[in-house]
Protein backbone atom coordinates (compact mmCIF):
# COMPACT_ATOMS: atom_id res chain seq x y z
CA UNK A 1 0.00 0.00 0.00
CA UNK A 2 2.67 2.50 1.01
CA UNK A 3 4.68 1.85 -2.13
CA UNK A 4 1.58 2.59 -4.14
CA UNK A 5 1.12 5.86 -2.37
CA UNK A 6 4.72 6.91 -2.96
CA UNK A 7 4.30 6.74 -6.71
CA UNK A 8 1.02 8.58 -6.94
CA UNK A 9 1.24 12.33 -7.40
CA UNK A 10 0.48 14.02 -4.10
CA UNK A 11 1.05 17.72 -3.57
CA UNK A 12 4.46 17.71 -1.83
CA UNK A 13 3.94 20.39 0.83
CA UNK A 14 0.56 20.71 2.56
CA UNK A 15 -1.06 23.93 1.40
CA UNK A 16 -1.56 26.62 4.01
CA UNK A 17 -4.91 27.40 2.43
CA UNK A 18 -7.39 24.59 2.12
CA UNK A 19 -7.59 21.19 3.73
CA UNK A 20 -4.75 19.16 5.20
CA UNK A 21 -5.93 16.13 7.10
CA UNK A 22 -4.90 12.71 8.23
CA UNK A 23 -7.97 11.04 9.67
CA UNK A 24 -7.42 8.12 12.00
CA UNK A 25 -10.50 6.58 13.58
CA UNK A 26 -10.27 3.33 15.51
CA UNK A 27 -13.45 1.37 15.90
CA UNK A 28 -12.66 -2.02 17.31
CA UNK A 29 -11.95 -4.23 14.32
CA UNK A 30 -12.20 -1.37 11.84
CA UNK A 31 -9.48 1.24 11.47
CA UNK A 32 -9.72 4.25 9.21
CA UNK A 33 -6.46 5.90 8.24
CA UNK A 34 -6.86 8.31 5.37
CA UNK A 35 -4.75 11.31 4.36
CA UNK A 36 -6.53 14.09 2.48
CA UNK A 37 -5.21 17.36 1.13
CA UNK A 38 -7.02 19.84 -1.06
CA UNK A 39 -6.63 23.45 -2.14
CA UNK A 40 -9.51 25.93 -2.14
CA UNK A 41 -11.68 25.34 -5.19
CA UNK A 42 -10.80 21.65 -5.32
CA UNK A 43 -13.54 19.05 -5.44
CA UNK A 44 -12.27 15.76 -4.04
CA UNK A 45 -14.28 12.56 -4.26
CA UNK A 46 -13.82 9.77 -1.76
CA UNK A 47 -14.68 6.72 -3.80
CA UNK A 48 -14.94 3.23 -2.41
CA UNK A 49 -17.11 0.20 -1.83
CA UNK A 50 -19.70 0.10 0.96
CA UNK A 51 -18.09 -0.26 4.36
CA UNK A 52 -14.76 1.20 3.17
CA UNK A 53 -14.96 4.00 5.73
CA UNK A 54 -15.86 6.88 3.41
CA UNK A 55 -18.78 8.11 5.49
CA UNK A 56 -16.75 7.74 8.69
CA UNK A 57 -14.09 9.94 7.10
CA UNK A 58 -16.73 12.51 6.22
CA UNK A 59 -18.20 12.44 9.73
CA UNK A 60 -14.71 12.84 11.16
CA UNK A 61 -14.18 15.92 9.00
CA UNK A 62 -17.49 17.34 10.25
CA UNK A 63 -16.60 16.57 13.87
CA UNK A 64 -19.44 14.09 14.34
CA UNK A 65 -16.92 11.31 14.97
CA UNK A 66 -13.87 12.04 17.13
CA UNK A 67 -10.42 11.38 15.71
CA UNK A 68 -8.32 8.80 17.51
CA UNK A 69 -5.22 10.10 15.76
CA UNK A 70 -3.86 12.20 12.93
CA UNK A 71 -4.62 15.84 12.38
CA UNK A 72 -7.14 18.13 10.68
CA UNK A 73 -6.19 21.59 9.50
CA UNK A 74 -8.41 23.87 7.50
CA UNK A 75 -6.87 27.07 6.14
CA UNK A 76 -4.05 26.60 8.63
CA UNK A 77 -6.32 26.25 11.69
CA UNK A 78 -6.25 23.02 13.68
CA UNK A 79 -9.78 21.67 14.09
CA UNK A 80 -9.21 18.30 15.80
CA UNK A 81 -10.70 19.48 19.08
CA UNK A 82 -13.25 21.90 17.69
CA UNK A 83 -16.86 20.75 18.23
CA UNK A 84 -18.95 20.36 15.05
CA UNK A 85 -20.97 23.53 15.65
CA UNK A 86 -17.80 25.65 15.70
CA UNK A 87 -16.26 24.19 12.53
CA UNK A 88 -16.54 26.18 9.30
CA UNK A 89 -18.02 23.10 7.65
CA UNK A 90 -21.23 22.53 5.71
CA UNK A 91 -22.69 19.07 5.26
CA UNK A 92 -25.16 17.73 2.71
CA UNK A 93 -26.35 14.46 4.23
CA UNK A 94 -27.22 11.41 2.17
CA UNK A 95 -30.97 11.67 2.79
CA UNK A 96 -30.61 15.45 3.24
CA UNK A 97 -32.07 15.52 6.78
CA UNK A 98 -34.08 18.65 6.04
CA UNK A 99 -35.93 19.61 9.22
CA UNK A 100 -39.45 18.36 8.48
CA UNK A 101 -41.20 20.98 10.64
CA UNK A 102 -39.55 23.94 8.90
CA UNK A 103 -40.21 25.39 5.45
CA UNK A 104 -37.48 25.31 2.81
CA UNK A 105 -36.73 28.95 3.64
CA UNK A 106 -36.42 28.33 7.38
CA UNK A 107 -34.30 25.24 6.77
CA UNK A 108 -31.79 27.37 4.87
CA UNK A 109 -32.13 30.23 7.38
CA UNK A 110 -31.36 27.88 10.27
CA UNK A 111 -27.58 28.11 9.84
CA UNK A 112 -27.36 31.90 9.53
CA UNK A 113 -29.66 32.19 12.59
CA UNK A 114 -27.30 29.99 14.60
CA UNK A 115 -24.43 32.19 13.47
CA UNK A 116 -26.05 35.23 15.03
CA UNK A 117 -28.08 36.75 12.20
CA UNK A 118 -31.48 38.23 13.04
CA UNK A 119 -34.53 36.37 11.83
CA UNK A 120 -35.08 38.87 9.00
CA UNK A 121 -31.42 38.83 7.94
CA UNK A 122 -31.27 35.04 8.00
CA UNK A 123 -34.41 34.77 5.91
CA UNK A 124 -33.08 37.27 3.39
CA UNK A 125 -29.87 35.26 3.06
CA UNK A 126 -31.88 32.05 2.73
CA UNK A 127 -34.17 33.54 0.09
CA UNK A 128 -31.15 34.62 -1.95
CA UNK A 129 -29.68 31.10 -1.79
CA UNK A 130 -32.94 29.44 -2.76
CA UNK A 131 -33.28 31.89 -5.62
CA UNK A 132 -29.79 30.98 -6.78
CA UNK A 133 -30.79 27.31 -6.70
CA UNK A 134 -33.84 28.05 -8.82
CA UNK A 135 -36.19 27.38 -5.92
CA UNK A 136 -37.68 30.86 -5.43
CA UNK A 137 -41.15 29.41 -5.96
CA UNK A 138 -40.74 26.81 -3.22
CA UNK A 139 -39.52 28.87 -0.26
CA UNK A 140 -42.67 28.20 1.77
CA UNK A 141 -42.85 24.48 1.06
CA UNK A 142 -42.27 21.92 3.78
CA UNK A 143 -39.62 19.30 2.90
CA UNK A 144 -42.18 16.53 2.39
CA UNK A 145 -43.74 18.55 -0.43
CA UNK A 146 -40.43 18.87 -2.31
CA UNK A 147 -39.27 16.48 -5.01
CA UNK A 148 -36.00 14.61 -4.52
CA UNK A 149 -34.10 17.01 -6.74
CA UNK A 150 -35.57 20.06 -5.02
CA UNK A 151 -34.82 18.66 -1.57
CA UNK A 152 -31.24 18.05 -2.66
CA UNK A 153 -30.87 21.68 -3.73
CA UNK A 154 -32.42 22.95 -0.49
CA UNK A 155 -29.93 20.77 1.42
CA UNK A 156 -27.08 22.22 -0.65
CA UNK A 157 -28.36 25.77 -0.09
CA UNK A 158 -28.64 25.08 3.65
CA UNK A 159 -25.04 23.84 3.78
CA UNK A 160 -23.72 26.75 1.71
CA UNK A 161 -25.65 29.45 3.58
CA UNK A 162 -23.19 29.29 6.50
CA UNK A 163 -20.28 30.05 4.11
CA UNK A 164 -18.33 26.90 4.92
CA UNK A 165 -14.63 26.62 4.17
CA UNK A 166 -15.19 22.91 3.73
CA UNK A 167 -18.27 21.49 2.05
CA UNK A 168 -19.01 17.82 2.68
CA UNK A 169 -21.44 15.82 0.57
CA UNK A 170 -22.40 12.28 1.56
CA UNK A 171 -23.63 10.29 -1.47
CA UNK A 172 -25.29 13.45 -2.79
CA UNK A 173 -27.13 11.68 -5.62
CA UNK A 174 -27.85 8.29 -4.07
CA UNK A 175 -31.40 9.13 -2.99
CA UNK A 176 -32.50 10.18 -6.47
CA UNK A 177 -34.05 8.13 -9.26
CA UNK A 178 -32.08 7.68 -12.47
CA UNK A 179 -33.71 10.48 -14.46
CA UNK A 180 -33.57 13.14 -11.76
CA UNK A 181 -30.03 12.07 -11.07
CA UNK A 182 -28.81 13.08 -14.51
CA UNK A 183 -30.25 16.54 -14.15
CA UNK A 184 -29.19 17.07 -10.53
CA UNK A 185 -25.68 15.82 -11.26
CA UNK A 186 -25.26 18.53 -13.90
CA UNK A 187 -26.60 21.21 -11.54
CA UNK A 188 -24.46 20.02 -8.67
CA UNK A 189 -21.40 20.11 -10.91
CA UNK A 190 -22.14 23.75 -11.73
CA UNK A 191 -22.63 24.69 -8.07
CA UNK A 192 -19.49 22.87 -7.02
CA UNK A 193 -17.52 24.62 -9.77
CA UNK A 194 -18.68 27.98 -8.36
CA UNK A 195 -17.80 27.00 -4.79
CA UNK A 196 -14.60 28.76 -3.77
CA UNK A 197 -13.50 26.58 -0.84
CA UNK A 198 -12.75 22.87 -0.50
CA UNK A 199 -15.47 20.35 -1.31
CA UNK A 200 -15.22 16.68 -0.36
CA UNK A 201 -17.85 14.27 -1.57
CA UNK A 202 -18.34 10.63 -0.76
CA UNK A 203 -19.73 8.24 -3.33
CA UNK A 204 -19.64 4.64 -4.42
CA UNK A 205 -20.67 5.62 -7.94
CA UNK A 206 -17.63 6.12 -10.23
CA UNK A 207 -19.66 8.21 -12.67
CA UNK A 208 -20.71 10.68 -9.96
CA UNK A 209 -17.12 10.85 -8.77
CA UNK A 210 -15.69 11.41 -12.22
CA UNK A 211 -18.26 13.99 -13.28
CA UNK A 212 -18.26 15.98 -10.05
CA UNK A 213 -14.67 15.81 -8.77
CA UNK A 214 -11.31 17.08 -9.97
CA UNK A 215 -9.52 14.46 -7.97
CA UNK A 216 -10.49 10.99 -6.75
CA UNK A 217 -9.28 9.34 -3.59
CA UNK A 218 -10.12 5.66 -3.65
CA UNK A 219 -10.64 4.16 -0.20
CA UNK A 220 -10.78 0.44 0.51
CA UNK A 221 -10.92 -1.09 3.97
CA UNK A 222 -10.15 2.21 5.64
CA UNK A 223 -7.07 3.03 3.56
CA UNK A 224 -6.30 5.09 0.48
CA UNK A 225 -5.43 2.67 -2.31
CA UNK A 226 -5.13 5.17 -5.13
CA UNK A 227 -5.62 8.84 -5.81
CA UNK A 228 -5.41 11.02 -8.86
CA UNK A 229 -7.41 12.67 -11.63
CA UNK A 230 -10.48 10.84 -12.95
CA UNK A 231 -8.88 10.15 -16.34
CA UNK A 232 -5.70 8.85 -14.76
CA UNK A 233 -7.59 6.51 -12.45
CA UNK A 234 -9.83 5.28 -15.23
CA UNK A 235 -6.80 4.45 -17.39
CA UNK A 236 -4.50 3.12 -14.67
CA UNK A 237 -6.52 1.28 -12.06
CA UNK A 238 -4.41 -0.21 -9.30
CA UNK A 239 -6.87 -2.49 -7.55
CA UNK A 240 -9.42 -5.04 -8.62
CA UNK A 241 -12.20 -2.83 -7.22
CA UNK A 242 -11.26 0.19 -9.31
CA UNK A 243 -10.71 -1.93 -12.41
CA UNK A 244 -14.21 -3.33 -12.02
CA UNK A 245 -15.63 0.14 -11.45
CA UNK A 246 -14.12 1.48 -14.66
CA UNK A 247 -14.78 -1.78 -16.51
CA UNK A 248 -11.28 -3.11 -17.16
CA UNK A 249 -9.55 -6.45 -16.81
CA UNK A 250 -6.57 -5.83 -14.55
CA UNK A 251 -3.52 -8.02 -13.86
CA UNK A 252 -0.34 -7.60 -11.96
CA UNK A 253 2.98 -9.06 -13.05
CA UNK A 254 6.64 -8.48 -13.96
CA UNK A 255 7.49 -6.96 -17.30
CA UNK A 256 10.48 -7.87 -19.40
CA UNK A 257 10.32 -6.01 -22.68
CA UNK A 258 6.98 -6.62 -24.39
CA UNK A 259 6.11 -9.63 -22.27
CA UNK A 260 4.50 -9.41 -18.87
CA UNK A 261 4.71 -12.58 -16.79
CA UNK A 262 1.72 -12.53 -14.45
CA UNK A 263 2.02 -13.48 -10.80
CA UNK A 264 -0.55 -16.21 -11.48
CA UNK A 265 1.41 -17.85 -14.33
CA UNK A 266 0.43 -16.90 -17.89
CA UNK A 267 2.06 -14.10 -19.86
CA UNK A 268 0.54 -11.13 -21.70
CA UNK A 269 2.20 -9.43 -24.65
CA UNK A 270 1.89 -5.67 -24.64
CA UNK A 271 3.02 -2.83 -26.87
CA UNK A 272 4.79 -0.96 -24.07
CA UNK A 273 8.39 -1.85 -23.28
CA UNK A 274 8.79 -2.00 -19.50
CA UNK A 275 10.76 -3.82 -16.86
CA UNK A 276 9.87 -4.67 -13.28
CA UNK A 277 6.47 -4.84 -11.57
CA UNK A 278 3.63 -3.58 -13.75
CA UNK A 279 -0.11 -3.58 -14.15
CA UNK A 280 -1.69 -4.69 -17.40
CA UNK A 281 -5.23 -3.61 -18.25
CA UNK A 282 -7.56 -4.13 -21.18
CA UNK A 283 -11.30 -3.61 -21.66
CA UNK A 284 -13.68 -6.59 -21.95
CA UNK A 285 -14.53 -5.41 -25.47
CA UNK A 286 -10.92 -6.12 -26.54
CA UNK A 287 -11.41 -9.83 -25.94
CA UNK A 288 -12.40 -12.06 -28.86
CA UNK A 289 -13.80 -15.53 -28.14
CA UNK A 290 -13.45 -18.61 -30.34
CA UNK A 291 -14.94 -22.06 -29.98
CA UNK A 292 -11.92 -23.70 -31.68
CA UNK A 293 -8.29 -22.78 -31.34
CA UNK A 294 -7.77 -19.94 -33.86
CA UNK A 295 -5.04 -20.68 -36.38
CA UNK A 296 -4.67 -17.66 -38.62
CA UNK A 297 -5.20 -15.13 -35.84
CA UNK A 298 -2.54 -12.46 -35.47
CA UNK A 299 -3.31 -12.12 -31.78
CA UNK A 300 -0.28 -13.01 -29.65
CA UNK A 301 -2.36 -13.35 -26.53
CA UNK A 302 -4.24 -16.62 -26.63
CA UNK A 303 -5.69 -18.39 -23.58
CA UNK A 304 -7.77 -21.45 -23.03
CA UNK A 305 -10.76 -20.59 -20.81
CA UNK A 306 -14.09 -21.81 -19.60
CA UNK A 307 -17.33 -19.82 -19.34
CA UNK A 308 -18.22 -19.30 -15.69
CA UNK A 309 -21.20 -17.03 -16.15
CA UNK A 310 -23.07 -14.81 -18.61
CA UNK A 311 -25.03 -11.63 -18.02
CA UNK A 312 -26.49 -8.90 -20.16
CA UNK A 313 -24.62 -5.64 -20.00
CA UNK A 314 -26.48 -2.93 -21.90
CA UNK A 315 -27.04 -4.36 -25.38
CA UNK A 316 -24.05 -6.65 -24.97
CA UNK A 317 -23.39 -9.89 -23.20
CA UNK A 318 -20.62 -10.00 -20.68
CA UNK A 319 -19.00 -13.39 -20.20
CA UNK A 320 -17.06 -14.16 -17.07
CA UNK A 321 -14.28 -16.59 -17.90
CA UNK A 322 -12.07 -18.76 -15.76
CA UNK A 323 -9.13 -20.90 -16.82
CA UNK A 324 -5.59 -19.89 -17.73
CA UNK A 325 -6.53 -16.23 -17.30
CA UNK A 326 -9.70 -15.15 -15.50
CA UNK A 327 -11.22 -12.32 -17.49
CA UNK A 328 -14.39 -10.57 -18.55
CA UNK A 329 -15.27 -10.48 -22.24
CA UNK A 330 -17.99 -8.49 -24.02
CA UNK A 331 -19.66 -9.83 -27.12
CA UNK A 332 -22.87 -9.22 -29.02
CA UNK A 333 -25.94 -11.36 -28.45
CA UNK A 334 -25.59 -12.74 -31.98
CA UNK A 335 -21.98 -13.73 -31.39
CA UNK A 336 -22.89 -15.37 -28.10
CA UNK A 337 -25.60 -17.39 -29.87
CA UNK A 338 -23.29 -18.39 -32.74
CA UNK A 339 -20.63 -19.53 -30.29
CA UNK A 340 -23.28 -21.43 -28.34
CA UNK A 341 -21.96 -20.00 -25.10
CA UNK A 342 -23.23 -21.48 -21.87
CA UNK A 343 -21.72 -21.88 -18.44
CA UNK A 344 -19.11 -24.61 -18.62
CA UNK A 345 -18.39 -24.16 -22.35
CA UNK A 346 -14.71 -24.30 -23.31
CA UNK A 347 -13.51 -21.29 -25.34
CA UNK A 348 -10.32 -19.69 -26.61
CA UNK A 349 -9.85 -16.02 -25.79
CA UNK A 350 -7.59 -13.70 -27.77
CA UNK A 351 -6.56 -10.10 -27.11
CA UNK A 352 -4.48 -7.99 -29.47
CA UNK A 353 -1.37 -6.55 -27.91
CA UNK A 354 -2.34 -3.10 -29.20
CA UNK A 355 -5.46 -3.15 -27.04
CA UNK A 356 -3.64 -3.87 -23.81
CA UNK A 357 -2.11 -1.19 -21.67
CA UNK A 358 0.78 -1.76 -19.29
CA UNK A 359 1.99 0.72 -16.65
CA UNK A 360 4.41 0.53 -13.74
CA UNK A 361 2.97 -0.77 -10.50
Amino acid sequence: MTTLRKDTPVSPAPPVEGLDARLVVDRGAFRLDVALTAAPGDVVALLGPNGAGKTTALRALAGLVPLTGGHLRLDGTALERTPPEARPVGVVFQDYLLFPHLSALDNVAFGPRCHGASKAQARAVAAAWLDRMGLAAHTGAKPRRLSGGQAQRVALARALAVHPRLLLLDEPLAALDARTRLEVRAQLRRHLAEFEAVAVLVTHDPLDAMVLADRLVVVEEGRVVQEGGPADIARHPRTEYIAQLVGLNLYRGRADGHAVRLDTGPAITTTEILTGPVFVAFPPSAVTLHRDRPTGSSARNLWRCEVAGLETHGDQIRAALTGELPLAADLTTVAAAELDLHPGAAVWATVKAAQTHAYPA
Partner: protein
Amino acid sequence: MTPPVKQAAADTLEGGPRRARVRVRVRTGIPLALLLPALLGLAFLLLPLVALLVRAPWHTLPEQLTGAEVWQALRLSLVCATAATAVSLVIGVPLAWLLARTDFPGRGLVRALVTLPLVLPPVVGGVALLLALGRNGVVGQWLDSWFGVTLPFTTAGVVVAETFVAMPFLVISVEGTLRAADPRYEEAATTLGASRFTAFRRVTLPLIAPGIAAGAVLAWARALGEFGATITFAGNFPGRTQTMPLAVYLALQSDPEAAIALSLVLLAVSIAVLAGLRDRWMTAS
Protein backbone atom coordinates in the same frame (compact mmCIF):
# COMPACT_ATOMS: atom_id res chain seq x y z
CA MET B 1 -72.51 -23.45 35.52
CA THR B 2 -69.33 -22.46 33.77
CA PRO B 3 -67.95 -25.83 32.69
CA PRO B 4 -70.96 -26.82 30.52
CA VAL B 5 -70.90 -23.46 28.79
CA LYS B 6 -67.20 -23.83 28.07
CA GLN B 7 -67.86 -27.29 26.75
CA ALA B 8 -70.54 -26.01 24.41
CA ALA B 9 -68.29 -23.28 23.13
CA ALA B 10 -65.53 -25.78 22.55
CA ASP B 11 -67.96 -27.98 20.60
CA THR B 12 -68.95 -25.30 18.16
CA LEU B 13 -65.45 -23.95 17.74
CA GLU B 14 -63.36 -27.04 17.57
CA GLY B 15 -65.47 -30.15 17.35
CA GLY B 16 -68.15 -28.77 15.03
CA PRO B 17 -68.30 -29.46 11.28
CA ARG B 18 -65.47 -27.74 9.51
CA ARG B 19 -67.59 -26.11 6.82
CA ALA B 20 -69.97 -24.47 9.28
CA ARG B 21 -67.08 -23.06 11.25
CA VAL B 22 -65.51 -21.55 8.18
CA ARG B 23 -68.80 -20.00 7.13
CA VAL B 24 -69.25 -18.32 10.51
CA ARG B 25 -65.77 -16.91 10.39
CA VAL B 26 -66.16 -15.58 6.89
CA ARG B 27 -69.41 -13.87 7.79
CA THR B 28 -68.31 -12.09 10.96
CA GLY B 29 -64.55 -12.17 10.56
CA ILE B 30 -64.21 -12.28 14.35
CA PRO B 31 -63.80 -15.52 16.30
CA LEU B 32 -66.45 -15.91 18.97
CA ALA B 33 -63.80 -16.77 21.54
CA LEU B 34 -62.42 -13.26 21.17
CA LEU B 35 -65.66 -11.41 20.55
CA LEU B 36 -67.41 -12.47 23.76
CA PRO B 37 -64.65 -11.48 26.19
CA ALA B 38 -64.15 -8.28 24.21
CA LEU B 39 -67.81 -7.31 24.62
CA LEU B 40 -67.66 -8.25 28.30
CA GLY B 41 -64.63 -6.01 28.70
CA LEU B 42 -66.37 -3.13 26.97
CA ALA B 43 -69.44 -3.53 29.15
CA PHE B 44 -67.29 -3.71 32.26
CA LEU B 45 -65.65 -0.40 31.39
CA LEU B 46 -68.83 1.40 30.40
CA LEU B 47 -71.30 0.07 32.99
CA PRO B 48 -70.04 2.15 35.95
CA LEU B 49 -70.18 5.29 33.85
CA VAL B 50 -73.70 4.48 32.75
CA ALA B 51 -74.68 3.79 36.35
CA LEU B 52 -73.28 7.18 37.31
CA LEU B 53 -75.50 8.82 34.73
CA VAL B 54 -78.57 6.73 35.61
CA ARG B 55 -78.37 7.41 39.31
CA ALA B 56 -77.39 11.06 38.98
CA PRO B 57 -79.74 13.34 40.94
CA TRP B 58 -80.60 15.29 37.81
CA HIS B 59 -83.37 17.40 39.46
CA THR B 60 -81.25 18.52 42.40
CA LEU B 61 -78.09 18.78 40.30
CA PRO B 62 -78.25 22.59 39.83
CA GLU B 63 -78.40 23.10 43.60
CA GLN B 64 -75.67 20.56 44.22
CA LEU B 65 -73.34 22.25 41.80
CA THR B 66 -73.98 25.84 42.79
CA GLY B 67 -72.35 25.29 46.15
CA ALA B 68 -69.17 27.32 46.55
CA GLU B 69 -67.21 24.28 47.83
CA VAL B 70 -67.74 22.44 44.53
CA TRP B 71 -66.24 25.18 42.42
CA GLN B 72 -63.52 25.71 44.97
CA ALA B 73 -62.54 22.05 44.78
CA LEU B 74 -62.82 21.98 40.99
CA ARG B 75 -60.72 25.10 40.58
CA LEU B 76 -58.13 23.74 42.98
CA SER B 77 -58.05 20.45 41.08
CA LEU B 78 -57.60 22.12 37.71
CA VAL B 79 -54.98 24.55 38.98
CA CYS B 80 -52.98 21.87 40.78
CA ALA B 81 -53.16 19.33 37.92
CA THR B 82 -52.08 21.99 35.44
CA ALA B 83 -49.27 23.17 37.71
CA ALA B 84 -48.12 19.56 38.23
CA THR B 85 -48.14 19.05 34.44
CA ALA B 86 -46.14 22.25 33.95
CA VAL B 87 -43.56 21.16 36.53
CA SER B 88 -43.42 17.72 34.92
CA LEU B 89 -42.77 19.32 31.52
CA VAL B 90 -39.99 21.57 32.82
CA ILE B 91 -38.06 18.81 34.58
CA GLY B 92 -39.50 15.69 32.92
CA VAL B 93 -38.70 16.46 29.27
CA PRO B 94 -34.98 17.08 29.99
CA LEU B 95 -34.96 13.89 32.06
CA ALA B 96 -36.48 11.98 29.15
CA TRP B 97 -33.84 13.47 26.83
CA LEU B 98 -31.09 12.40 29.21
CA LEU B 99 -32.44 8.85 29.30
CA ALA B 100 -32.93 8.64 25.54
CA ARG B 101 -29.90 10.44 24.14
CA THR B 102 -27.01 10.00 26.53
CA ASP B 103 -25.15 7.02 27.80
CA PHE B 104 -24.00 6.99 31.39
CA PRO B 105 -23.25 4.18 33.83
CA GLY B 106 -26.35 2.94 35.60
CA ARG B 107 -28.77 4.41 33.07
CA GLY B 108 -30.89 1.29 33.12
CA LEU B 109 -31.24 1.56 36.89
CA VAL B 110 -32.12 5.27 36.70
CA ARG B 111 -34.74 4.44 34.09
CA ALA B 112 -36.26 1.78 36.34
CA LEU B 113 -36.32 4.19 39.29
CA VAL B 114 -38.04 6.85 37.20
CA THR B 115 -40.83 4.45 36.38
CA LEU B 116 -41.15 3.26 39.99
CA PRO B 117 -43.89 5.80 40.93
CA LEU B 118 -45.98 4.24 38.13
CA VAL B 119 -46.30 1.01 40.06
CA LEU B 120 -45.83 2.31 43.60
CA PRO B 121 -49.09 2.56 45.58
CA PRO B 122 -49.79 6.31 45.74
CA VAL B 123 -50.22 6.20 49.53
CA VAL B 124 -46.68 4.88 49.83
CA GLY B 125 -45.58 7.72 47.60
CA GLY B 126 -47.29 10.14 49.98
CA VAL B 127 -45.55 8.65 53.00
CA ALA B 128 -42.21 8.78 51.18
CA LEU B 129 -42.82 12.42 50.30
CA LEU B 130 -43.56 13.19 53.96
CA LEU B 131 -40.28 11.58 54.98
CA ALA B 132 -38.39 13.53 52.32
CA LEU B 133 -40.09 16.91 52.28
CA GLY B 134 -42.08 16.91 55.53
CA ARG B 135 -41.26 19.42 58.23
CA ASN B 136 -38.83 16.92 59.76
CA GLY B 137 -38.02 15.20 56.48
CA VAL B 138 -34.58 14.53 55.07
CA VAL B 139 -34.70 17.65 52.89
CA GLY B 140 -37.80 19.25 54.37
CA GLN B 141 -36.09 20.25 57.62
CA TRP B 142 -33.59 22.36 55.65
CA LEU B 143 -36.32 23.87 53.50
CA ASP B 144 -38.07 24.83 56.70
CA SER B 145 -35.10 26.23 58.61
CA TRP B 146 -33.31 27.94 55.69
CA PHE B 147 -36.12 29.21 53.53
CA GLY B 148 -39.13 28.91 55.81
CA VAL B 149 -40.78 26.74 53.16
CA THR B 150 -43.23 24.14 54.35
CA LEU B 151 -44.74 21.85 51.76
CA PRO B 152 -46.97 19.33 53.57
CA PHE B 153 -50.61 20.29 53.97
CA THR B 154 -50.33 23.25 51.57
CA THR B 155 -51.53 23.78 48.00
CA ALA B 156 -47.91 23.57 46.87
CA GLY B 157 -47.81 20.19 48.59
CA VAL B 158 -50.71 19.05 46.43
CA VAL B 159 -48.73 20.03 43.34
CA VAL B 160 -45.68 18.18 44.66
CA ALA B 161 -47.67 15.01 45.36
CA GLU B 162 -49.39 15.11 41.96
CA THR B 163 -46.11 15.78 40.14
CA PHE B 164 -44.48 12.82 41.89
CA VAL B 165 -47.19 10.49 40.70
CA ALA B 166 -47.83 11.98 37.25
CA MET B 167 -44.38 12.84 35.92
CA PRO B 168 -43.31 9.26 35.10
CA PHE B 169 -46.16 9.08 32.57
CA LEU B 170 -44.72 12.10 30.78
CA VAL B 171 -41.11 10.89 30.99
CA ILE B 172 -41.95 7.46 29.57
CA SER B 173 -44.03 8.91 26.74
CA VAL B 174 -41.43 11.53 25.77
CA GLU B 175 -38.54 9.09 26.04
CA GLY B 176 -40.28 6.69 23.69
CA THR B 177 -40.89 9.45 21.16
CA LEU B 178 -37.28 10.61 21.45
CA ARG B 179 -35.97 7.13 20.81
CA ALA B 180 -38.13 6.87 17.72
CA ALA B 181 -36.98 10.29 16.45
CA ASP B 182 -33.90 10.31 14.21
CA PRO B 183 -30.95 11.68 16.21
CA ARG B 184 -29.22 12.66 12.98
CA TYR B 185 -31.45 15.73 12.76
CA GLU B 186 -29.60 16.99 15.83
CA GLU B 187 -26.31 16.23 14.08
CA ALA B 188 -27.45 18.14 11.01
CA ALA B 189 -28.31 21.08 13.28
CA THR B 190 -24.87 21.06 14.93
CA THR B 191 -23.13 21.10 11.55
CA LEU B 192 -25.12 24.27 10.85
CA GLY B 193 -23.67 25.91 13.94
CA ALA B 194 -26.30 25.04 16.54
CA SER B 195 -25.14 24.14 20.04
CA ARG B 196 -26.53 20.91 21.38
CA PHE B 197 -29.09 22.84 23.39
CA THR B 198 -30.15 24.96 20.41
CA ALA B 199 -30.45 21.78 18.34
CA PHE B 200 -32.68 20.32 21.03
CA ARG B 201 -34.81 23.45 21.33
CA ARG B 202 -35.22 24.27 17.65
CA VAL B 203 -35.16 20.83 16.02
CA THR B 204 -35.80 17.98 18.43
CA LEU B 205 -38.48 19.67 20.52
CA PRO B 206 -40.74 20.50 17.54
CA LEU B 207 -40.20 17.00 16.13
CA ILE B 208 -41.30 15.29 19.34
CA ALA B 209 -44.11 17.75 20.13
CA PRO B 210 -46.86 15.16 19.53
CA GLY B 211 -45.22 12.81 22.02
CA ILE B 212 -44.86 15.60 24.55
CA ALA B 213 -48.53 16.53 24.12
CA ALA B 214 -49.60 12.92 24.60
CA GLY B 215 -47.40 12.60 27.68
CA ALA B 216 -48.70 15.88 29.09
CA VAL B 217 -52.32 14.77 28.70
CA LEU B 218 -51.55 11.48 30.42
CA ALA B 219 -49.78 13.26 33.25
CA TRP B 220 -52.52 15.86 33.58
CA ALA B 221 -55.24 13.23 33.73
CA ARG B 222 -53.27 11.25 36.29
CA ALA B 223 -52.71 14.39 38.37
CA LEU B 224 -56.39 15.35 38.20
CA GLY B 225 -57.44 12.02 39.63
CA GLU B 226 -54.66 11.81 42.21
CA PHE B 227 -55.94 10.76 45.62
CA GLY B 228 -53.62 8.62 47.75
CA ALA B 229 -50.40 10.62 47.66
CA THR B 230 -52.31 13.90 47.92
CA ILE B 231 -54.33 13.03 50.99
CA THR B 232 -51.26 11.54 52.68
CA PHE B 233 -48.85 14.35 51.93
CA ALA B 234 -51.14 17.37 51.67
CA GLY B 235 -54.17 16.41 53.74
CA ASN B 236 -57.74 17.33 53.11
CA PHE B 237 -58.35 21.00 53.82
CA PRO B 238 -61.21 22.55 51.85
CA GLY B 239 -60.02 25.41 49.68
CA ARG B 240 -56.34 24.62 50.22
CA THR B 241 -55.66 20.97 49.57
CA GLN B 242 -59.08 19.43 49.01
CA THR B 243 -59.13 18.53 45.34
CA MET B 244 -62.14 17.00 43.59
CA PRO B 245 -61.28 13.33 44.23
CA LEU B 246 -60.85 14.12 47.92
CA ALA B 247 -64.13 16.05 47.96
CA VAL B 248 -65.90 13.16 46.24
CA TYR B 249 -64.62 10.69 48.77
CA LEU B 250 -65.56 12.90 51.71
CA ALA B 251 -69.02 13.65 50.29
CA LEU B 252 -69.73 9.99 49.69
CA GLN B 253 -69.67 9.41 53.45
CA SER B 254 -72.08 12.21 54.34
CA ASP B 255 -74.02 13.15 51.21
CA PRO B 256 -73.96 10.53 48.42
CA GLU B 257 -75.94 12.74 46.03
CA ALA B 258 -73.27 15.43 46.30
CA ALA B 259 -70.59 12.81 45.63
CA ILE B 260 -72.40 11.74 42.45
CA ALA B 261 -72.74 15.35 41.33
CA LEU B 262 -69.03 15.97 41.89
CA SER B 263 -68.19 12.77 40.06
CA LEU B 264 -70.29 13.89 37.11
CA VAL B 265 -68.29 17.12 36.94
CA LEU B 266 -64.99 15.21 36.89
CA LEU B 267 -66.38 12.88 34.23
CA ALA B 268 -67.41 15.84 32.11
CA VAL B 269 -63.96 17.43 32.48
CA SER B 270 -62.26 14.16 31.49
CA ILE B 271 -64.45 13.70 28.42
CA ALA B 272 -63.92 17.30 27.38
CA VAL B 273 -60.12 16.95 27.60
CA LEU B 274 -60.14 13.66 25.74
CA ALA B 275 -62.32 15.08 22.97
CA GLY B 276 -60.28 18.26 22.71
CA LEU B 277 -56.96 16.46 22.33
CA ARG B 278 -58.23 13.47 20.41
CA ASP B 279 -56.53 14.31 17.11
CA ARG B 280 -53.10 14.89 18.59
CA TRP B 281 -53.56 11.87 20.77
CA MET B 282 -54.25 9.68 17.77
CA THR B 283 -51.29 10.93 15.73
CA ALA B 284 -48.98 10.44 18.69
CA SER B 285 -49.93 6.83 19.16
